[in-house]
Each structure stands twice: as structure tokens, then as C-alpha cells.
């Protein structure tokens, strides 16, 4: 049993925290390119595919650092979700993984559909023709789709699940772009008889079901760690506010009702920190039942903590906490989205 970071992990944490702090101060800079340059995009991929061969603990460190700085990155959808689908496919597409790891080929994860439970059969359909696959359907809230991106798409073919890749600029693919309430760029992506080659299939049938579940588990693990960083940021800001803001001639920190709320925030944060660790240490477990149970527990605890910490942070900040410009107001929206994701899974 050991909860310490190794020397390399501590260095990674340092690097990531410095990078994300800079990015938070300069939102127009190209964070993705800098992450690629530092090798962060290559972290979870096998060395034979141009990756660094690092594990879920390193991903947790990156996610927490991103949350702490409140930066929006494509890492969750691109590396933790789509990247996992590539990495865990029975025949991993080596060239594409290398491109993703270098930051040259952007990827997005296209799974959610309006009106479909996140673990139910996809309404998007694929069919096999003499020329190849033809896909039709609509995906919602596909995040960080950029020009030239590859989409990892979940579809149903003759009642069985299939995971395949479709270039976002393929004929028949159309997008409606918008932003989620946490600021993340997102798209509704429609596929209108899109023709793709057989080589784009990552998994079929039972394999596709397992692959999709594993992607969603990795996404939960990433977002849980991101939530821990966000909760820490909001708690820190709240403590600072309680110490400096004065009312009735005293600092807010002298009022016990507020001190107790802050203590509740810490309890919720530490419970979630434990769960982010559990997620990282379970998400690659060989036993599917162990993974499933751990991730379900992570979702339950982290979702509730997100809500408690976010709501308390806004309440303890008073009016300033509900403004668009204040980091706590933005953090509230980021944590609210993660809470909802944890509930849906």
C-alpha cells in the first residue's frame, strides 16, 4: 500500500501544473500543441505506437492538474475516450495512434445520442454494402471537434454494437457547433449515409460492447480526477474569500456556520480524492466486475461531492459567486456538468 507519487510522477505533476497555470492566464495560446510538445498526449499509449507507456495514475495527475487550473482541454474526449478506443482495440491502428500522440491527428469521441440511455443500444445505424460501410444517425455533445478530426463513433449494425472511425470531413457528415454550459466547444454531428471503408472498424459485437464500456470507464476516471482538481480550486478560493471578506466588522471566517460549510467541503473533496485514486487503480484491472463496481462507486461519490462543493463555494462567496467573470462561477458550471456526467455514466 502506497499513496506517494513516484519521482517521475511528481515531475509530471509539476510540469502539468505549470503548463495549465500558464494556459489559464492565456486562453488564446495553443495549449494542445504545447501538450503535444511536452509529450503529454503520448502518455497512455504503448511505446511501440509512439507513446510513453504510462498508466492511469499519470492520467489522473494530468486531469487533476487541468481541473485545478480550470482549463478546458480536449484531453478527456480525445485521449481518455477516443484514445482508449484506439489503444484497446484488438488491432490498434498504430499510425493513427502515433498521429494522435504527436498532436497531428485530432480525435473526438462520438457516443451520446438524444433520447438514448448512455449504456443502451445506439440509434445510429451502420450497414454493410458492396463498397463498404454506410453510417446514418446523429450524435450529440461531441466535444472538441476540430478541422480534420477523426471521430470514434458507436453505431448499431443488425442489432449488434460496432465501434468505428469516421473522418469529420467525410461526405455526408455535417455539424452544428455550440458550447456546453461549462464553455466546452461541442457539436451535434449528423451522418447521412456516410460511406466508410472496412479498415475503420475498431470492434464489432461483444468486443465493441466491452470496448465502449471501457472507454466510458476511462472517461469517468479522467473526469473524476478533473473534478478533484476543480473542487480543490473552489475550496482554495473559498478559504481565501472567507479570510479576506469582512462583514459585521469581522472576517467571514469567524462565523461558525460558514466554517462548518467549509469543513463539509473538505470532507467531500477528500472522499472524492480517494475515489479518483480508486478509479485510476481499478480502471485497468483485469477483472471486469472489479472495474464495473469500482467505477459505479466512483460515480456515486464524486457526483455528490461535485454538487456539494460547487454549491457551497457559490453560497459562501455570496453575490460574486454567481457572476460570469468569477472563477468560482465558472467552476460551479464545470462541476455541475461533471456531476451530471457521473449520474449518467
Amino acid at each position, binding site marked *: *500500500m502506497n499513496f506517494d507519487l513516484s519521482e517521475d510522477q511528481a515531475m509530471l505533476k509539476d510540469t502539468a501544473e505549470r503548463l495549465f497555470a500558464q494556459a489559464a492566464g492565456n486562453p488564446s495560446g495553443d495549449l494542445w500543441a504545447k501538450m503535444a510538445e511536452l509529450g503529454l498526449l503520448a502518455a497512455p499509449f504503448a511505446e511501440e505506437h509512439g507513446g510513453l507507456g504510462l498508466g492511469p495514475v499519470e492520467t489522473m495527475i494530468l486531469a487533476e492538474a487541468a481541473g485545478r487550473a480550470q482549463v478546458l482541454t480536449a484531453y478527456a474526449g480525445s485521449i481518455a475516450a477516443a484514445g482508449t478506443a484506439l489503444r484497446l482495440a484488438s488491432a490498434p491502428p498504430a499510425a493513427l495512434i502515433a498521429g494522435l500522440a504527436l498532436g497531428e491527428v485530432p480525435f473526438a469521441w462520438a457516443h451520446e445520442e438524444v433520447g438514448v440511455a448512455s449504456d443502451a443500444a445506439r440509434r445510429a445505424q451502420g450497414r454493410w454494402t458492396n463498397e463498404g460501410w454506410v453510417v446514418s444517425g446523429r450524435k450529440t455533445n461531441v466535444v472538441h471537434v476540430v478541422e480534420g478530426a477523426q471521430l470514434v463513433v458507436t453505431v448499431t449494425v443488425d442489432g449488434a454494437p460496432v465501434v468505428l472511425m469516421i473522418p469529420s470531413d467525410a461526405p455526408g457528415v455535417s455539424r452544428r457547433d455550440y458550447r456546453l454550459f461549462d464553455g466546452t466547444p461541442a457539436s451535434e454531428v449528423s451522418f447521412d449515409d456516410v460511406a466508410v471503408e472496412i479498415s475503420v472498424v475498431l470492434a464489432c459485437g461483444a468486443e465493441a460492447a466491452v470496448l465502449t464500456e471501457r472507454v466510458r470507464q476511462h472517461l469517468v476516471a479522467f473526469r473524476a480526477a478533473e473534478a478533484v482538481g476543480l473542487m480543490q480550486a473552489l475550496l482554495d478560493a473559498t478559504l481565501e474569500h472567507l*479570510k479576506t471578506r469582512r462583514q459585521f466588522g469581522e472576517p467571514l471566517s469567524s462565523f461558525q456556520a460558514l*466554517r462548518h460549510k467549509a469543513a463539509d467541503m473538505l*470532507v467531500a473533496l477528500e*472522499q472524492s480524492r*480517494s475515489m479518483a485514486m*480508486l478509479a485510476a*487503480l481499478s480502471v485497468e484491472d483485469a477483472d471486469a466486475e472489479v472495474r464495473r463496481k469500482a467505477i459505479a462507486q466512483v460515480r456515486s461519490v464524486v457526483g455528490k461531492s461535485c454538487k456539494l462543493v460547487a454549491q457551497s463555494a457559490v453560497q459562501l462567496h455570496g453575490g460574486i459567486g454567481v457572476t460570469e467573470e468569477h472563477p468560482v462561477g465558472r467552476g460551479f458550471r464545470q462541476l455541475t456538468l461533471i456531476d451530471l456526467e457521473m449520474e449518467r455514466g
Partner: protein
Amino acid sequence: MDLSFSPEDIAFRDQVRAFVAQNLSPDTRRKVEEGRALEKADVVDWQRTLNRVGWATPSWRASAGGPGWSAVQRYIFMDELYAGCAPEPLSFNVSMIGPVLIAYGSDEQKARFLAATANLDIWWAQGFSEPGAGSDLASLSATAVRDGDHYVVNGQKLWQGMAHRADWMFTLVRTDPNAAKKQGGISFLLINLRTPGVTIRPIITIDGRHEVNEVFLDDVRVPVGDRVGEENQGWTYAKYLLSNERTGIARIGMTRRILARVAEALASVEAGLSEAERARYAGEATAIEAELRALEITQLRVLAAQQAGQTDPRSSILKIKGVELRQAASELLLRVVGPAGYAFAYEGQNEAPSEAASNYFTLRAASIYGGASEVQKNIIASSVLGL
């Protein structure tokens, strides 16, 4: 980063598990499993069984007659006791007075008390709270006035758990009423409860049980040699005792045992639940179980910090959350058991069919004793959050 135990720790766990399975009496096991009250003999027998192999005092270092375990081994040991439905070693003896005597007792006191405390030849009661001194313990008003080789003690103590079974009481008394700070004039005395002037009166609590008492001290003569440490330094020793009392009291295994009873009740037909109710209760149980898993990891993180020699004020989190989950589980059990749980065993009566109600009532006190949850939050606010 790694959540798994070392092979040595796993071997140790298996050894403890086998010992509990082989040595715990089936009757005691059943009582603990069903949440029933234990007789004095049940507790004494088990403590002595553990003591025969040197395991009755998990937190004592080897030079003081303890097993000298690491924090992780202590955790594994307690976890196995809970899982095997065994009683905890008596906390008044093992977690409270023992460590104080080891740290601050005279050689004479150590020789006289430590072995007898470990073997439960002496049953200790805690004489801290008073009618006017609860969370604000330092405002206590029991007095001890020096008279030759003795102190003459007068006052009233409250909430003495199991004092009616006890032989001795460790207590805080005011020896200097004129001290500048109220914490300054307090001394730590050991009082033989058979001394003339000691009266113990039972208090029956809402669980229908007699566990706590009030203790009246009227001109009780206590030899000066039964004072621990220096006169007027008792607050230091009391704080040390309370910090030990609060360490590692998440009691995760106890909550897990209640959840096992919830699962059993959900599966039985007696509860008379509709499918919708069953699903809702099962969902609540799953949510508590998830929080419990998180707390277990939080506890291991605190242990790892302690192992590395850091004291961690975050142990207040363990107390707050541990109690919250135990209370939530006991409330859920009461709801799931349904009408079968309404019958109640009043003190001295036969066993009720279910102890769900009694357990729920008992556990309301858990967020009050050992540092109320509100006091723990004050500790977190000042010691961890720097407010």
C-alpha cells in the same frame, strides 16, 4: 501508487482471520452480528483470548507489552475483528488509559496497571464529562483538594460508559481553581470506584439499554500516587487521550456489518416491501457502500501518513464521515426491516426479534461522543483549513 497490501500484510490478515474464526465463541459472534448488547463476560473472555496471544492492545508499542504493530497492521487487525463479528478490545482500557499510562504514568503505575489493563483484570471507566462540561470539557468543576498524601475529590461526572462494570475510573479534576487559564488547573486522577463516597447511578438511554451512568464523588479520598503526571498538567494528558480516541474511528467494518443486515433484510420476504421500495432501498444501500469504500481509502491515506510519522488532523474526517455512514446505514436498516423491528427489548427483558431500532437509537449518540461532529468541524476549520 498502490492500494494492495504487501504479501506480509496479507499473511498477517489471514492469520488474524483464522484466529477469530477458531477462537470467538459462537454466542458472542451471533450477538455482534445481530447488533445485540454484550454481557460483561463476553467482553472479558474475548479480551483475554486476544491477550493470550498478545493482541489485546493493538496500539501499544512492544516495549509496553503491546504487539508493536504498524498502523497498517492495526487497521487490518481491526478490520478482521469487524468482519469476523468479534468485539473490539475494550476501548477505555486499550485506546484511552493504556496509552496515557505508557506515555505519562510513573514506573509504579505502569507496573501496577498496564498488564491488568491489557488482560481486563481491571475494567476502566472514563470520568471526563460533567453536567456543565461537555464539548467544553475544560470548564469542568469537579474539585480535588490536597489533604496530606491524599486528594479529597468532590463533583459529579456524567456519561460514564459501562461504569457499572468498571473497577477504576480515570478522571479530570480541578486542582487549581485560580489558574489563569481554565485548562491550567486540571489534574488527571485514577480513582478506584470501590472507594467510599463513590456513587454510580444508571442512565437508561433511548436504545433501552443501560450503558452509561452518572458518577457522584463525595469526599472521595484518592492517594496522591494515583495522580498521572504532574499536578495541574492534566489537560495535556487528556488532549493526548482524546487524540488517540479519535484516531482510526471510522469503524468502516461496523457499517459494513449493518449493510450486510440490510442486504439480508432486503432479500427476505418478511420485510413486506414492494418492488419499487426494494429498488429504492437497494439504491440507498449502494450509495452508502460507495461512500464507505471512499472512506476506507481515505482512512488508508491517513494511516499511510501516520506510518510516515505525520500526525494528520484529517482524522477528524474519519470521525465525521464514519459516524454519518453508520447512522445512515442503521436508519436504512430500521426502514427495511419494517414492522418486525417495532418490538423492543427494554432493559432486562428478553431479546427482541430485531435489534434494528435499538441500533438506530444507540447510534444517535455516535455523533455526540468522542468529539461531536460540530467539534470535529471546528478542528478541521482551524487545523486543516487554517480559518
